[in-house]
């Protein structure tokens, strides 16, 4: 009885869609074609959930790399607590178990009028719907002197892969007593707690192998999330090793000098043994080129369907979007991707759309057996993604709970990467 209204509603949406999708019907194709650009956390999740939805969809995933290296848990690798290979995930299951066509190429351009994507190898893909999940790019000239060559000397390691290996090598060959410097970019950037987690885990490595080393964090901000939890842990685990300087003390980092491995602030020059410089960020280059970004450098989207506010028919998820209260995390990218996949599938089939559940949890390590977590849920309110519930570990949480969280984090990594890559 009650479902009748829904059915009617569904049919109406379906009827509306027939017009929208008539070009593909005219070409005699039975299934809608969805192209997903970017096989990172957001893109791989959209592809998988679309391919396994009740709606018949042909899914093509475009990703240049054969294997994805997770940024999450890469700080454990930097501290020597996890092998590099354990961060790698291939696309075989997505192709074989879910029937996704995986093309290992870069997308060069999008033509929204023709509904096509041009690949670097010269070929073209047509789509009925497009999802773009290109992650982040670094802003040009955000820091004077920090160019491609400087990145090879003062790595950012903010995209996991060769940069992470470079930073690990530098940390390993650093002499005891050396200074490890971390430059934290201005908001918004990928994974807000990650610079402080990195400091914590590298400190645990130094404590065992280079106990006289020091860590200096030069921040673009004057405070950071869960600061009390981090600073309490630094005092307990690594007394005197980590120093954090807010922007109000330094005037902010303005330039780097790779020749001397120095970082220059308004008031002083800091010479490092190893410098980890994380530059300011914006949406991935393709989003910029395709006109999907606004003046902020990020992509405005509808918070229910994740459709671009600038280019209809193109959806975006992950770090590239203006997420409102949602931070740029893998968990958020995965959560948005599911909502987006269900919205696209419902729209293509003209079927019911259920309220989405958007969520974020980040497990953050303070030491190998001391981790904390947060749990936040979000809802679209007035066109924006708003935080509705927010729980975070407290400073006074017992060691047993923290130890349990460090174990739960391992379980999360296993389940989460299985959820994304099959």
């Amino acid at each position, binding site marked *: 009885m*009650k*479902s009748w*209204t*829904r*059915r009617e509603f*569904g*049919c109406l949406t*379906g009827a509306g*869609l*027939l017009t929208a999708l008539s070009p593909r*019907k005219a070409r005699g194709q*039975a*299934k809608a074609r969805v192209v997903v650009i970017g096989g990172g956390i957001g893109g791989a999740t959209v592809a998988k*959930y679309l391919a396994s*939805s*009740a*709606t*018949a969809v042909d899914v093509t995933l475009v990703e240049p790399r054969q294997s994805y290296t997770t940024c999450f848990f890469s700080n454990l690798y930097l501290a020597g607590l996890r092998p590099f290979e354990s961060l790698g995930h291939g696309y075989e299951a997505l192709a074989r178990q879910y029937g996704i066509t995986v093309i290992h190429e870069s997308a060069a351009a999008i033509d929204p009028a023709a509904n096509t994507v041009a690949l670097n190898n010269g070929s073209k893909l047509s789509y009925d719907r497009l999802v773009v999940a290109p992650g982040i790019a670094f802003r040009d000239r955000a820091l004077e002197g920090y160019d491609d060559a400087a990145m090879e000397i003062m790595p950012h390691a903010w995209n996991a892969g060769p940069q992470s290996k470079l930073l690990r090598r530098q940390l390993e060959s650093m002499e005891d007593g050396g200074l490890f410097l971390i430059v934290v970019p201005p908001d918004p950037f990928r994974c807000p707690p990650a610079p402080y987690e990195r400091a914590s885990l590298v400190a645990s490595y130094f404590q065992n192998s280079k106990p006289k080393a020091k860590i200096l964090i030069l921040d673009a901000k004057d405070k950071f999330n869960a600061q009390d939890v981090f600073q309490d842990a630094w005092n307990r685990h690594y007394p005197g090793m980590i120093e954090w300087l807010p922007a109000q003390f330094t005037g902010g980092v303005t330039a780097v000098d790779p020749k001397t491995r120095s970082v220059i602030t308004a008031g002083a020059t800091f010479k490092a043994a190893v410098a980890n410089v994380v530059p300011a960020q914006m949406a991935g280059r393709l989003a910029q080129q395709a006109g999907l970004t606004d003046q902020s450098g990020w992509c405005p989207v509808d918070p229910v369907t994740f459709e671009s506010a600038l280019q209809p028919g193109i959806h975006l998820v992950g770090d590239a979007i203006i997420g409102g209260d949602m931070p740029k995390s893998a*968990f958020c990218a*995965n*959560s948005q991707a*599911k909502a987006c996949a*269900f919205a696209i*599938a*419902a729209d*293509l*089939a*003209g*079927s*019911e*759309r*259920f309220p989405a*559940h958007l*969520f974020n*949890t980040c497990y953050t390590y303070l030491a190998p057996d001391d981790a904390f*977590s*947060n*749990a*936040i*849920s979000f809802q679209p309110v007035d066109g924006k993604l708003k935080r*509705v*519930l*927010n*729980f*975070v*570990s407290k400073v006074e949480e017992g060691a047993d709970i923290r130890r349990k969280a460090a*174990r*739960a*984090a*391992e*379980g*999360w990594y*296993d*389940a*989460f990467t*299985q*959820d994304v890559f099959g």
Partner: protein
Amino acid sequence: MRPAIAAGLVLLVSQSGAAAEPDQGAQLAATCASCHRLDGGGTGIPSIIGLGEERLKSALLAYRASERPNHIMHAIALSLSDEEIASVARYVAAQGK
């Protein structure tokens, strides 16, 4: 009027002949899959496969009421309506069979 969101509500939409059956339980279980492996494996986070519908439901209600302390599951359960809890419990329980 109660919104019609019972799991198993089948919306047959004969568009290009494809029958779409969106299942709310399946979509909610996708949220759980970010942390719980739905193939029954996993360590560090308890498996929710094989628990049975009633145990799933009562665990979620206990987390929601903070009778079982855990801030992650408290937040998850608080974000679910009674109907959603019933729907996800039914779906997850059926995965174990």
